[in-house]
């Protein structure tokens, strides 16, 4: 089953080309040009990984990261930035980012990170499901 990814970047040309390249690699791609659009998307849809630009008009990547994690804690978020610094990286990880990449990013490296993020998300969802089943069994007194 194809990994489902959400690409969020205000640069439409970047989004269009990246989406085409990721689709050619077998990913199911959804795109948004603002963090606000992305937050609306995740309300009704699930994604194996979210690739989020750091600097965007309105809500920036760090703020969006916080909001996404509060709505969907299991989300795997990879931040993309024009200038990666240790401070930014540490802050992003503290807020729950899965990874942090500098543009221009190597697509093979991004692909590997998405697959790893997707596997991590599956584990989290599996654990959550197991816990839910245990809770039901306990409640039913089996």
């Amino acid at each position, binding site marked *: 089953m194809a990994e489902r990814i959400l690409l969020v970047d*205000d*640069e439409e*040309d*970047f989004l269009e*080309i*990246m989406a*085409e*390249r990721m689709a*050619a690699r077998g990913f199911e791609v959804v795109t948004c040009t603002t963090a606000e659009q992305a937050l609306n998307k995740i309300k009704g849809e699930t994604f194996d990984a979210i690739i989020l630009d750091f*600097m*965007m*008009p*309105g809500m920036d990547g760090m703020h969006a990261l916080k909001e996404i994690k509060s709505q969907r804690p299991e989300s795997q978020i990879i931040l993309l930035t*024009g*200038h990666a610094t240790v401070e930014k990286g540490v802050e992003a990880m503290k807020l729950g980012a899965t990874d942090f990449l*500098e*543009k*221009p*990013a190597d*697509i093979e490296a991004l692909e590997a990170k998405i697959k790893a993020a997707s596997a991590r998300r599956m584990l989290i969802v599996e654990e959550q499901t197991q816990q839910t089943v245990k809770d039901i069994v306990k409640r039913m007194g089996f």
Partner: protein
Amino acid sequence: MGNQTDRLGDAGLRFFSKMTSANSHEAKNALAIINESAGLLEDLVLLEEKGQPLSADRLSRLAGKIRQQVARADELAKNSHRLAHSLDFQRGPSHLGRTVELAVSLAARFAAMARVELATVPASGELTLPVSTFQLLHIIWLALEFALDHMQAASTLDIHAENVPGGALLRLSPLTACDTTNAAQFTAAPEVRTLAEALGCTITYGPQAAELELTFRK
């Protein structure tokens, strides 16, 4: 605290640093698109080798996008160059219109982030001032930055320079989310005050038309 020269120097360095950083960040964005475009070309070649024909129209559009990003990166490099060379003219003559153009160009990304459109009204006639081009650029930037912080999203900031008796005037309007208290705080800020003093500039705010005016005496 230091003397005026120290304060101007420190503030100038911070301004230079901020502009250089923003410019290089933008250049990285342009390079990322060029990089992905090159990657897509490689992908299309691989697909062609597997039997999927290349579309001339697709290639043409991709070439167009690469050219656009090259032009963007070129503009950023030119801005960096002009910023660096603004330090060459410490006592003028400084061209107000051209300096405003550079400041607006440097502010473009910040305006986009604030979701504000910048509209420069072309200056009529030659507006020159016997002042440091770098300091002139710096104070225009500070005024733009203040305006962007006090504008509602999806609004337009008009920037207009003109000759006035005894000098030149730069007007930014309308500052759609500004009041007289904000404006007073801006003009009283040490960095702004020191620069205005060095440039022979008076900054006023007209609340009715929400106009910020910088008047330069020749």
